[in-house]
């Protein structure tokens, strides 16, 4: 019992929680952009799986983790274009077509993995730790803040970037306009379909990157690697009330809960059954938050509604 409550282990647990938060954060920030434009993408999980496999396979074949990351990003972007065509052009029901994307991603990556790789072979993840030189001199706090790979910093840097993009730029204004009242935006000459396509591509690119981050963090690929993380990311958008900082808070919560539960289990403080209950907690909390949020803060008014000129 006492073993867990040492500063060293708590620091390590929090640091690992921050790393585990990265896939949630990337995927949920991207999903938030799409939803602000009025498009629900329920296929995040599938896109993450595709991004994860692309990153894993590239890293496995080339030994280059950064190249893997790039491939995850590119495949996410490609999926974004496909999803934009399905929802923006064909007006498909967004919730259901997202499930289609999920099933496709789940089956397709499993297929590719079994066919191209077969047995799980580990890859070495991203090694670039830009601030690691600071970690040694600054003690525990340094380990917590400076021991991460560059991707972690990029993910957290994207929080203010996305905030700025949505609230301070013309593009962001247009995104919010087409998410709240596409007809009005249309009469003002904003290309509703164009803005929505851009938002979807941004969202899916980040989902692909999130999958890549996960694969490189875990260092392995297997069927259903994401195990529901993409679905949680969607809920985190509601959890964070469509605001980047709220999304980050939720991501950190999920990340730190997972790392704490894992650490407690490794240290034999709690049994497997208690760990299952603890792992359940963030999902229960999300449901509670959804109840509160649904009363207080409205979602983008045109969310899930395809755009037509005559409403």
């Amino acid at each position, binding site marked *: 019992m006492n073993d867990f409550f040492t500063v060293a282990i708590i620091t390590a647990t929090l640091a690992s929680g921050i790393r585990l938060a990265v896939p949630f954060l990337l995927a949920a920030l991207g999903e938030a952009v799409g939803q602000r434009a009025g498009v629900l993408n329920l296929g995040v999980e599938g896109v993450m799986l595709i991004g994860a496999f692309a990153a894993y396979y590239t890293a496995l074949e080339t030994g280059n983790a950064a190249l893997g990351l790039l491939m995850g990003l590119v495949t996410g972007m490609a999926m974004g274009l496909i999803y934009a065509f399905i929802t923006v052009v064909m007006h498909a029901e967004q919730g*259901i077509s997202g499930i289609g994307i999920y099933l496709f991603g789940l089956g397709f990556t499993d297929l590719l993995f079994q066919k191209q790789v077969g047995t799980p072979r580990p890859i070495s993840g991203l090694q670039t730790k830009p601030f690691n030189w600071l970690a040694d001199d600054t003690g525990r706090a340094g380990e917590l803040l400076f021991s991460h790979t560059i991707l972690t910093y990029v993910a957290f840097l994207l929080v203010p970037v996305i905030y700025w993009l949505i609230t301070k730029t013309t593009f962001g204004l247009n995104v919010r306009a087409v998410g709240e009242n596409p007809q009005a935006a249309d009469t003002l000459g904003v290309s509703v379909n164009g803005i929505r396509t851009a938002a979807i591509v941004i969202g899916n690119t980040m989902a692909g990157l999130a999958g890549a981050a996960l694969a490189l963090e875990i260092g392995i690929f297997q069927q259903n690697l994401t195990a529901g993380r993409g679905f949680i990311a969607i809920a985190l958008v509601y959890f964070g009330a469509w605001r980047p900082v709220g999304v980050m808070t939720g991501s950190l919560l999920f990340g730190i809960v997972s790392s704490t539960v894992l650490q407690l289990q490794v240290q034999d403080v709690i049994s*497997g059954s208690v760990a299952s*209950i603890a792992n359940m907690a963030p999902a229960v909390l999300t*449901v509670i938050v959804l109840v509160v949020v649904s009363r207080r803060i409205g979602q983008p008014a045109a969310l899930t509604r395809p755009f037509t000129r005559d409403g």
Partner: protein
Amino acid sequence: MLKMADSQQESSGRHDIGRYFRPFAGLVVPAAAVIAALAVGAILLGVFGANPLTGYRELFTGAFGGPDELAATALKSIPLMLVGVGICIAFRTGVINIGGEGQIIMGAILATLVALALPDVPRPILVPLVMIAGGVGGGIWGAIPGALKAYSGVNEILSTIMMNIIAGFFMSFLLEDWLIEPGAIRIQQTKRLTQNADLPILPGGTRLHLGIVVALIVAVLGYLLLFRSSLGMRLRAVGHNPHASRAAGMKVEMSITQALAFSGACAGIAGAVLVFGSESHRLIGEGGPLAFTQSAGFNGIVTALFGGLHPLFTVLSSYLFGGMLAGGISLQRAVQVPQALVIALNGVVVVFVVGSLKLRTRVQRWAEGDIQMEDRA
């Protein structure tokens, strides 16, 4: 979100003669979607160096080639039918139920608990009892997000997804400790459950068991509920237009809760069938929730959509997709392309079916001789 239910409700309200043709006409575009998906599959097979024709011939033979194959297909289709019928009820009420996975699991858990508590109850009583327990477990797990949507405005897509995650961890919680097979190596599974709860094998020399009869009964009940009862009329009215239904004095909140409860109950029965119709006759959590449910909670959405959200047509479409799953094994054996291909193709089918809805509405109206009606949607 209600767009799909709307367009179908519209036609059912106004065109009585076309009513019997509607599912057929509505199937033209989904059939095209499947052909398109199979074309995508052929390309994938080709990319992997397999002959698509050989692959599909093996898939077809493996699914429908003989009595054993037909029975295996039927077995694979049972969870799809049950979940699919539930999806019909929810979607027709304008409620998107993504929680099939969790509802299957909770149904399986409650049914397992009943079998563990009452091992000596004779088979003719225990088998219906565990099926009902499955329905109750799944029904409660559906009613919760239903009530949250109806009374608190919580988006049901998100809450049902969260309920899936909670159910998955709840199953692993139970199987880590309380319900784990005593004395055995620590695999997340119960002991072999009482034989009195085994679903009887049907005569005919195949492995087909009573679960298929359960699924067909549920499908007929689902049909009667939706289209031949005043309750179903209210559900569909709410799906068509909640505001008008409220103005007409209907309890919209109650209908939404009922719809998700019924939907969950169907999935829960699927969970019970997966336990008592399995060859090991136990609840197995090893390998994660997806390994137990075989993704039926999601695939049932595919079959319901493909069946035009009609319970009886969902039975047919579930049998077809069950054939894809059963035939996928033969495909893998013959051309060395993993059966995961089938799951990927299911996803493509969903995308094509919902993506072609604009087109489908047009075809339906044309079939009903109503093409002149303006279609601006």
